[in-house]
């Protein structure tokens, strides 16, 4: 599905990968977190081969990462507090009080203070995304992976999520990888932008370069036209 792909994210920066639905964006993220392994090639995390790690090492690496899923993927048998605190409970020796304080702080950071005891089914899509983000940052990760963070949200909530991504980066100094087809997210949060088409990166640069380029692929994507070098198959 992917070939000839080379991407890197310097510490503390935000890489945005954009492309059409089904272009293989989520597949890239799943490789970055070790859910999928490449047939050929390598995935490096902090200089080490993620795809060659043993299970225990991979678990250690994953504790330093957080991931926000496209569907939020909240555990629907657990309350919001249990969702956010699961990693803390399983990987740290914090007491109940410290965990509760941490959950409260993370929920406040995403603007959802006081909903600890709600069930995911009671929340709106935007709230679920934010709880998902609170869960992703609960362990203070160094790398956060966002899979379509704004898809399916109204433009105002989407912009609030974009702001949260920027705030999270600035407040906690994390490295981020955002996968999206939302042009606003691309321009707002990215320090580097890569455009993926048919499993290959066909453009890579800063948001400013993205806006000024006359690369026909990029222009077609930004302007949202069905006609152009990127073929639409039905």
């Amino acid at each position, binding site marked *: 599905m992917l070939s000839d792909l080379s991407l890197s994210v310097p510490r503390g920066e935000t890489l945005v990968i954009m492309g059409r639905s089904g272009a293989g964006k989520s597949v890239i993220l799943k490789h970055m977190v070790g859910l999928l392994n490449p047939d050929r090639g390598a995935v490096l995390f902090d200089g080490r081969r993620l795809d060659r790690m043993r299970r225990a090492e991979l678990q250690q690496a994953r504790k330093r990462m957080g991931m926000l899923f496209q569907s939020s*993927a909240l555990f629907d048998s657990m309350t919001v507090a249990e969702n956010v605190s699961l990693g803390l409970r399983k990987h740290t020796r914090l007491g109940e009080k410290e965990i509760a304080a941490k959950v409260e702080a993370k929920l406040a950071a995403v603007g959802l203070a006081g909903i600890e005891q709600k069930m995911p089914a009671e929340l709106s899509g935007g709230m679920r995304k934010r709880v998902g983000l609170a869960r992703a940052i609960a362990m203070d990760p160094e790398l956060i992976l966002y899979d379509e963070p704004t898809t399916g949200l109204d433009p105002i909530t989407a912009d609030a999520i974009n702001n949260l991504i920027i705030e999270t980066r600035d407040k906690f100094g994390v490295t981020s990888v955002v996968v999206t087809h939302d042009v606003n997210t691309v321009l707002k949060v990215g320090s580097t932008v890569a455009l993926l088409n048919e499993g290959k990166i066909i453009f890579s640069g800063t948001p400013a370069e993205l806006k000024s380029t006359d690369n026909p692929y990029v222009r077609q994507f930004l302007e949202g036209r069905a006609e152009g070098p990127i073929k639409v198959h039905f």
Partner: protein
Amino acid sequence: MLELFSRIGERVLGGFYRLGEATLLILRVFGELPHIWRVHRETVAQMIRIGIGSMPLVAVTSLFTGMVLAVQTSYQIEEYVPEIFIASAVCKATIIELGPVITALVISGRVGASIAAELGTMRVTEQIDALETMAVDPVRFLLLPRFFSGLVMMPVIVTFGCLIAIAGGYAVCLLYLEMSSVAFFQGMRQFVYPYDIYSGLLKSFIFGGTISLVGCYYGYCTSQGAEGVGRATTQSVVTNCLLILIFDYFLAMLLFPTAG
């Protein structure tokens, strides 16, 4: 013709693939057993759900099983055999055979299916992937508590079911067949041995493990959305029913060799 062969080949290979996949997953669950104390919270929750939650349904099915057993036995032996043997037959058949098997079939519909549906939904909504990315092993966190609870709660449920079934048989003997209490308990004591109880419990232990593992396997390996969840649920019930009846035969051969 060639197409037919290639299709048969595909099915056979697919079958072997699934068998291998299931074996690997089951071995992983067994491998996690020493870590059960790390998921004690989840395990207790599952034990309550699987064990206590199944009690009302098992009570009803067992009650009627015991009652029909008494009626049928009395009809079959008519006047030729002393009536205390009705009590023996009811108790013995319940403990070594009907109690474990009927309860297992009922539980496979209730618990096995719900495990498959729940894990299947978690798979297709990326909740299992989310656990992985949080460095929480889904085999340990989700499968192990369910397997362990099935294993230990099944003998408890079956014991409970047998008691209810015998109570049902007793009620029929007393009220419908006009047998005396003394005769009933005499018949029970005379022909029910401790070995019968142990073998019934061993059966239920094995059925409990099977039901939860089959549910876990189909749920964990679900793919293709809501349709896949439905398929996983159905397959788990069908597989469980088949396995229970097949295992029951071989266990009977092993445990009661004089019968063979």
